[in-house]
């Protein structure tokens, strides 16, 4: 359970909006180890979305460094980032972001398609993963035929199907009622217990409380880092 999954070194991110430069991140040093359960909190405008995009390799920092699973990521081009997202990151979004015209099974197969997994193996792995999130009997359903909680389970299955280093969940319960939200959080807890590293972005304290460590951002800087596991050399 040792080893750094995420290490950032003073990454900054500036956006130019017209003539004005917005400093969304001003150098956030963050180390996340394997099998940590981390929540990133902060009010809107604090830079938590930017940090999440960075961690998720959707974006690169203006300056500074980022190692994901030991690989330097900061200077990579589009297609290399895509490869890393495919292998190392499993996204769970607030709005599920399932493809509406595709079945649950096909949605879960998508990361495997881009990983170049042959179709038979792809199908088997997607079926196993849907079974794990309790949707073995909903595989042929399209998102519109599923409840919110079921949709988010499909999304979780999709996020995990390629065995990523991090499960990156952005407000995973934001569009769910609290009972269903709890269900999803229980699912995440269970995944964590199985050894999955989870990074949760949220602004809800009771959701963040599920995590074992909470990093709070304010104005593009870390304002608090609570519950950090003591790891030698970190």
């Amino acid at each position, binding site marked *: 359970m040792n080893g750094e999954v995420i290490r950032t070194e003073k990454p900054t991110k500036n956006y130019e909006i017209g003539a004005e430069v917005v400093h969304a991140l001003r150098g956030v040093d963050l180390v996340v180890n394997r099998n940590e359960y981390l929540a990133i909190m902060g009010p809107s405008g604090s830079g938590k979305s930017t940090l999440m*995009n960075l961690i*998720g390799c*959707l*974006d690169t920092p203006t300056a500074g460094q980022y190692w994901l699973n030991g690989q330097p990521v900061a200077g990579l081009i*589009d*297609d290399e980032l*895509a*490869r890393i*997202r*495919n*292998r190392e990151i499993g*996204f769970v*979004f607030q709005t599920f*972001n*399932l*493809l509406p*015209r595709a079945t649950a099974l096909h949605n879960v197969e*998508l*990361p495997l*398609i*881009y*990983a170049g997994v042959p*179709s038979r193996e792809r199908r088997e792995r997607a079926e196993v993963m849907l079974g794990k999130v309790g949707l073995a009997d909903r595989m042929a359903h399209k998102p519109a035929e599923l409840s919110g909680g079921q949709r988010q389970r499909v999304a979780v299955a*999709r996020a995990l199907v*390629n065995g990523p280093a991090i499960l990156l969940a952005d407000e995973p319960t934001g569009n769910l009622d609290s009972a269903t939200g709890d269900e999803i959080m229980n699912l995440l807890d269970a995944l964590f217990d199985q050894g999955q590293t989870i990074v949760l972005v949220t602004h809800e304290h009771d959701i963040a409380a599920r995590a074992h460590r909470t990093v709070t951002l304010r104005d593009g800087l870390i304002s608090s880092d609570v519950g950090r596991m003591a790891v030698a050399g970190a």
Partner: protein
Amino acid sequence: MDPMEGILLALQQIRAQKLKSFFAVIGVIIGVMFLITVVSVVEGMNRYMKEDFAKTVFGLNTVTVTRTPSVVFNGDREYWRRLMRRPRLTFADADLIREQLDVPALVAVVSENNGKLEGPNGTSVENVWLTGTTADYFRIRQYDVEKGRLFTPPEDRVGANVVVLGFDAADKLFGVLDPLGRRVKILANQSGNPITGVFTVVGVLKKQGTLFGMSLDNRAVAPAHSALAPMVNPHGFVDQILVQGDGPEAIPALKMSAEATMRTRHHLRPAMVNDFELETADDSLSFWDKISKILFIAFPGLVAIALVVGGMVIMNIMLVSVAERTREIGVRKALGARRRDVLFQILVEGATLSGAGAILGILIGIGLALAVRAFSPLPAAISPLWISVGALLGVSVGVIAGIYPANRAARMDPVVALRYE
């Protein structure tokens, strides 16, 4: 991402939005349909001209001597005036050509006009193709009788008033009656004067069918020196002299011999051009080759316009479709789709869409070509080569039209695309 998947996805989309997809590819449908129909008709004409028309009109292995060309392309007035000043052909020309030949050949003179036939009991046929000719005409044209006989060289020489009728003419005049030995009155205008003659029917030709919708069987053939002469060739002139050799290899010799004879007859000095025409089936096809070449050059232009317009419509529809699916593209990229994956997906979509359009166009085109064949005298030959050309063109249009939208999709920033509402 494998292509099958892309195609299935695109087909799904087409099924989900039938009308929109149809309008998206209507340009391609029309373009390909046009291509298939026109090419089929032109190809059919081509085949028809080479196989049937040339044989029917000019005869096999035959050199036809005429005063003026049978087809004139854009002659100006001076050209026409020169044509009209040319001397007419005579029986004596034909006789001399026959004498001068040093290879075996059949020679016949032909003069023609339009006229009317009147049979017994008041039956009559209008617009009859009247031919005054010599006995070898039937052998040159390979005409055979359905019943009765052809007229003979002696009847030909004395100008007997006997007639061989075309199948339709005989049928209309006599119906169930046996036409052989019966009288038929032939009427025609020559230089504004009505002329008539009474003939005895000696034979009926086998059915010949039609040429461009005109019956080849509504005719009457009589000896050149018979009472038909003043109706078809006043003053002893003839329209054509036919010279038929044993085979295609005899044609050049026949041509040279006939040309030499005619030049001598017309006292042409070596520097002067011919004031008569020598036509063969091959020559006559050269005019058709010109026409079909023009068609084959002009039509791709029209088809190209339809396809370019069609491509632009597809491009626009795909731009809209890409914009509508910004979020989907963002998700795909977040899940690891590289630029080329997205590019490929959109290109396959475009190709599938317009390929489906092309298939529809091909089917409609084939239908139209078949309809043309069924309901008009124009023949149509559907060629597999052009069907594949049509399909290929259709798919290429989709791919080319898809490049810009696909590129746009491929270059989307996943962060922005995921936020897109």
